[in-house]
């Protein structure tokens, strides 16, 4: 029997991993939450939409086309088993529990490639629980996959490459932006520049987008609060780089500070984690090819946030590692390993230029929500933490931060920052929330056995 390889996620990493495995004659199964392969960055619009790829992906249109066509070809020739609109909700030795069409079923595998991607990382801004406050990624998905703007007057705030990119894409598509507020100062951004020059083309493109945004873009903004009424945001209050109070009218806000690896399944697979001070988050422990435990491989933004190009490389490398371990013929990974070093250097520059705003998070006012799922405030967590518990999982038990439906995805790093501030220990010292299955909400009926009387 040939080796059964399960790939989770059909973004750039998952697609390149699948293609690489196919060249060795394996027929991997790819389980993907999307309706169509592509992942988030190369997300495809629904059938019947007509915008050309150049409009959807700009300078990256050729890469998107190549990736989509590669995968479509693999599906058409039956070289892969593509299972779309399906979530892996739990992992045990050799078995994945998946949720498809409202039913749970088991997918057995011998080897596992996790290419689960990343999500927006958010910092709490007073008022962010209101309807009409989204992530930057949400604003981009709405535009790409639906051809819509999430509001008539939008403020984007945060830091990182996505801030400028989403702002530019919305602006170009005809959405009305009210302001783009970057919490990183120009001075800080310049400090990241030397390493970012490992990929001068990207720096150049980013700079051109900035110029295109003109006076909408503000570096070194201090975010104060989102003023809301019953219907959503009405104004964003902030201070400019010179400390002057500003108020920008808006009906919609997009927030995001770079990305956070989606690591739930890696945790359920038993893969150990290291705290990355560069990314200020916990990341799965892998070797340079993406090997984790026995028969486990990780690729893409779910393990190291190198972006779409880096994800394609990491997907090939992880699959190559898998083939090496199976003693199957592989192409030399040398070129990809070299390219990956360049990506790492660029990413290092990015993380220095657009840092997580630890100071802003630590100064979160007591009445600001930090858990959107269950409406838990900074004060609630500080009380939980004040009881002498300075470990994330214990604070979760006391304050419920991380117990809501997103399972701590959006509040975990905020919570750790606040625990660290309160206790004087490092964020790493506050620990990491243990992932719990299922990784997505599952209706109880989905577990019902078919032939139940």
């Amino acid at each position, binding site marked *: 029997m040939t080796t059964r390889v399960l790939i989770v996620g059909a973004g750039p990493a998952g697609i390149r991993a699948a293609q690489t495995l196919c060249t060795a004659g394996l027929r991997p199964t790819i389980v993907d939450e999307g309706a169509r392969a592509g992942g988030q960055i190369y997300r495809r619009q629904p059938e019947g939409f007509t915008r050309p790829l150049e409009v959807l992906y700009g300078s990256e249109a050729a890469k998107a086309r190549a990736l989509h066509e590669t995968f479509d070809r693999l599906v058409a020739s039956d070289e892969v088993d593509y299972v779309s609109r399906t979530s892996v909700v739990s992992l045990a030795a050799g078995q994945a529990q998946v949720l498809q069409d409202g039913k749970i079923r088991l997918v057995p595998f011998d080897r596992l490639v996790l290419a689960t991607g990343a999500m927006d990382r958010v910092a709490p801004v007073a008022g962010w629980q209101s309807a009409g406050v989204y992530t930057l990624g*949400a604003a981009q998905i709405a535009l790409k996959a639906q051809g819509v703007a999430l509001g008539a007057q939008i403020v984007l705030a945060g830091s990182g490459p996505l801030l400028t990119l989403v702002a530019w894409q919305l602006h170009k598509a005809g959405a009305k932006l009210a302001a783009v507020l970057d919490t990183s100062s120009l001075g800080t951004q310049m400090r990241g520049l030397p390493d970012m020059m490992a990929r001068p083309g990207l720096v150049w493109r980013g700079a051109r987008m900035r110029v295109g945004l003109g006076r909408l873009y503000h570096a070194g903004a201090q975010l104060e609060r989102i003023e809301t009424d019953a219907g959503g945001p009405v104004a964003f209050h902030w201070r400019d780089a010179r400390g002057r109070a500003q108020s920008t009218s808006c009906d919609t806000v997009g927030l995001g500070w770079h990305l956070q690896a989606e690591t739930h399944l890696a945790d359920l697979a038993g893969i150990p984690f290291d705290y990355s001070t560069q990314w200020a988050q916990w990341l799965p422990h892998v070797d340079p090819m993406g090997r984790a435990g026995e028969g486990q491989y990780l690729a893409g933004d779910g393990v190291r946030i190198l972006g779409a190009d880096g994800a394609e490389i990491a997907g090939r490398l992880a699959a190559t590692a898998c083939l090496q371990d199976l003693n199957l013929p592989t192409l030399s990974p040398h070129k990809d390993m070299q390219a990956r070093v360049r990506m790492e250097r660029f990413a290092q520059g990015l993380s220095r230029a657009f840092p997580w705003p630890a100071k802003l998070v630590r100064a979160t006012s007591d009445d600001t929500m930090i858990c959107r799922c269950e409406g838990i405030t900074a004060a609630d967590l500080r009380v939980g933490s004040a009881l002498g518990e300075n470990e994330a999982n214990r604070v979760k038990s006391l304050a419920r931060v991380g117990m809501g439906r997103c399972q701590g995805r959006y509040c975990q790093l905020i919570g750790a920052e606040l625990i660290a501030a309160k206790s004087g220990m490092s964020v790493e010292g506050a620990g990491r929330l243990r992932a719990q299955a299922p990784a997505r909400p599952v209706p109880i009926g989905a577990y019902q056995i078919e032939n139940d009387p």
Partner: protein
Amino acid sequence: MIAPAQGRIVRLAETARSPVDFWYDSEALRALDGDTVLTAILLSVRALRDAEFGLEKRAGFCLMGACQDCWLWQETGPRLRACSTPVAQGMRLLSQPSDAWPAATPEGET
């Protein structure tokens, strides 16, 4: 109840698709084929539902299936994630659980 004074979402492109009619809190709304439930509703209304643990409304957050903010109810009982479910002709959506929860009545087991 959410007052449908005006929508939140603004269409920028892809307007030449066929219309889809559906119901949201017993109000007839119209969207286009290929819209998600989230897009479809927020074109006419400012939020999807009430927050369970606060006074504010909710209208989705991540749009990629990670935050679980946009779950809605259907008159037939099952909930759905509005950001990743395409709207369908004749859908009957609710911002709050129905009083006539089908599971509470044995004959509603469909």
